């Protein structure tokens, strides 16, 4: 097993995290009224509430028929500054933290607090947990945007030398881990820069544990391990050049 307390955590002055997400899937399904009750319990922490949903539209051109189906509906609770978000779905709770991201301790305390308030334990059974950190690395523009990303990320695309460095790229890497029982989906791509005089690359680390211990404290420990693995992956993918950006 990975040691969750073995390494000091690197805290950056300007962490590149644009969104951190923790998701819990449950074995049971909440009715609409139960979702509303759940939303009411956390209203004091998240004053704004919006109903969101997905609509599935099926078109059959041959029959000239279109059918709209409400695929899913959920309640989105958020803090007044919209950086702390809780999605209450029929069988999923999603905690999202937008930038500015402070610390894992702060984020996990919020999750723990909500779990206690919602009274997830001991009735509901968690069937899957996930963690996702979406980072945007703002690279100072040098005038030549071609092929800059290799200096900031260890991972990348290996191409024959005859092919010039990329002006844009996307890569996607899925693997299963042994130390922590989960799979990871790591993606990176050039994205549209938002900060003036920069080029931007995205690094998205997504960890999914499909087998979750039944006991809550063990599940919570698994979440800590996912977070540790996420940090290990992130730190092993970025370079010192990237670290300089987050530290300044």
């Amino acid at each position, binding site marked *: 097993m990975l040691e969750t307390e073995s390494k000091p955590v690197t805290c950056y002055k300007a962490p590149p995290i644009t969104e951190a*997400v923790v998701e819990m899937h449950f074995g049971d399904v909440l009715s609409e009224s139960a979702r509303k009750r759940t939303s009411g319990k956390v209203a004091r922490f998240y004053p704004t509430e919006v*109903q969101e949903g997905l609509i*599935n539209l099926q078109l059959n051109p041959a029959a000239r028929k279109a059918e709209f189906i409400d695929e899913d509906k959920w309640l989105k609770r958020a803090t007044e500054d919209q950086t702390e978000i809780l999605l209450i779905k029929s069988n999923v709770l999603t905690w999202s933290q*937008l930038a500015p991201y402070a610390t894992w301790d702060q984020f996990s305390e919020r999750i723990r607090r909500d779990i206690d308030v919602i009274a997830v334990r001991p009735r509901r059974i968690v069937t899957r947990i996930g*963690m996702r950190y*979406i980072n945007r690395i703002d690279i100072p523009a040098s005038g030549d945007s071609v092929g800059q990303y290799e200096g900031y990320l260890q991972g990348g695309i290996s191409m024959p030398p005859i092919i010039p460095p990329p002006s844009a790229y996307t890569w*996607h890497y899925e693997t299963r881990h042994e130390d922590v029982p989960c799979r990871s989906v790591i993606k990176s*791509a050039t994205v549209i820069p938002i900060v*003036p005089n920069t080029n931007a690359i995205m690094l998205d680390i997504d960890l999914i544990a499909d087998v979750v211990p039944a006991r809550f404290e063990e599940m919570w420990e698994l979440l800590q391990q996912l977070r540790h693995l996420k940090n290990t992956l992130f730190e092993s993918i970025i370079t010192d050049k990237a670290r300089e950006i987050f530290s300044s």
Partner: protein
Amino acid sequence: MSSAPELTLKAFNPADRIHPVKGGTVGSALPAPPVSFQLSQGETRISTPFPPPAKKSMEERLFEALVAAKVRTSLVAMHLHGGVRDKIFAQLNRLHDADEWPEGDEPLKLESFKTFLRFLLLFEPELRPSLGLSPDGNLLAAWVKEENRLMLEFCELNRVSWLVVREDANTFPERGSGVSTVDRLPEVLAPYRPEDWISRG
């Protein structure tokens, strides 16, 4: 004769805009674009806000404009220091007070706010401006120092309308105005010494 294939439009998770993953991933809470389509062989995906925009009240529109601005700010929040974000949010909240909203006015346009954020990142003004809103939803910023004024209207596509009134001792009051891109503002305003308004020193 083969029958025409049925076209299925599935919900499109914008967080997976790069590549859909089999077996599912962790979803993002970031809002979907107003309506998006993704066309591929045999499958089309669509997402839309819920409920449809046509049914929204003014209160809902004010709320959504604020949410959009705050979420947009989160994308650059790691580069905003010294409580800038909180001060902007406090002003935006005041500007969008539903009780004092003039009938017919538009809430803040996201495109205008994007231009404003770009301005903040480029200039890093030490002195915060007073913020206002034009009737059509463009963000206004004003720095006033005695008789001297710098006023900016942030428009879409990084365009900025600017107005300067500068009154130095022993000279006739000088006025200037124009339209520029936010990136060109430092050069365009340089003759008026904008640092006198936006810097503490």
